[in-house]
């Protein structure tokens, strides 16, 4: 199994997103048994040029088969398992919304120490009190 990162290419032309605008829309390179597990979304949105070209490549991390062809456009880098885990840890930490929240490294998610109230009101997290505070609102459309 190979640990790798890939980026987006145009769905039809296959041109990488940092070279030309993805006029058709974004797609991923075709790599044998490529399983994307996480991405560097803590750094999104990425700026674009005046023509709509990504100024840097968004990175999608995962694994693929050992005999996969990695010479295709859109493959960014390969990693050792240790390098891959270090990058994943850094991304997970970058997504941490509040100091008190509890992380799940497998899903890359963070959950509050107190669950979001199960009703139809809107709340925001108040870190000093470590609790959800109800927001005032107008009720009718």
């Amino acid at each position: 199994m190979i640990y790798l990162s890939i980026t987006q290419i145009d769905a039809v032309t296959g041109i990488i997103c940092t070279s030309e605008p993805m006029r058709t829309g974004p797609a991923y390179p075709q790599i044998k048994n490529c399983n994307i597990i996480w991405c560097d979304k803590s750094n999104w949105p990425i700026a674009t040029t005046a023509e709509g070209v990504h100024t840097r490549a968004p990175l999608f991390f995962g694994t693929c088969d050992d005999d996969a062809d990695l010479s295709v456009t859109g493959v960014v880098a390969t990693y050792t398992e240790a390098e891959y885990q270090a990058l994943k840890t850094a991304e997970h930490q970058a997504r941490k919304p509040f100091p008190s929240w509890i992380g799940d490294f497998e899903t890359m998610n963070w959950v509050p120490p107190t669950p979001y109230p199960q009703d139809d009101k809107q709340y925001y997290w108040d870190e000093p009190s470590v609790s959800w505070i109800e927001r005032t609102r107008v009720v009718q459309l």
Partner: protein
Amino acid sequence: MSKQYPGGLIKGTPITPSNNPPAASGIWTISEHAYWQQLRSWTPIQAPVAIGAAYGGGYYAGQVNDSGTVYNLIIADATVGQIYGKKWGSYGEITNASSLVNGPANTAQLIVKDRGFLDYQAAVFCNDLVTGGYSDWYLPARNELEVCYYFLKPTTTANLPFSNYVYHGRNANAFYPEPVNTIYTSGTPAQTTATNFQAGAASQEFQADYYWSSSESTVTPLYVGLGQNFSTGIFYNDYNKTYTTYYTRAMRRVLAGYVLT
């Protein structure tokens, strides 16, 4: 009740071969016959690609019917076109961005109101976006945003059909296969089948959180910005347009065709 036309056609539905009229042995009025001749010359409106597939510089999200003109909605790539923490506008300022379906017009109105002061951050973010070679991105109107929820709901969380005295899900501008003006059920819409938009490892998913639309509602005593929660589907309005606890996702649209109104 929708009006029925010869051949079983109903206003607002796409014209497909299955809508062919019965053998023309019945008695039709001249106007009905002329009407059917007109219909036969039209091309059926179909989805250009599957929901969530690459299309038009982003991803295809569904269609809306804006007074007989049907548009394909395109959601911007999340790597460049989705952001958290933008406020809708200025507290208490009336913008007249009142359309529930015309996001481009609403956004233009908000940009005029902004006057470069960056009060209308969500609209400015979308308006300034250039990606996929396109620069006509905008902040979706409420019913355009609702189409995104209907077809690209990220989670398996049950919908809330009713809360805070409001029924959720009604969209007068919905277009096939989404039913018009229909309240959600707890299970409909369900989690999207577009894997790239499902919560989890997906990269393009809407967050299970609140999103701004560009629509303003004339709720007394203040004009409010409208939004929607992408976890339970509830329609939301916020009189304090300066709140930043919302996501913003840019959209563009292209003409798909016309239906009778």
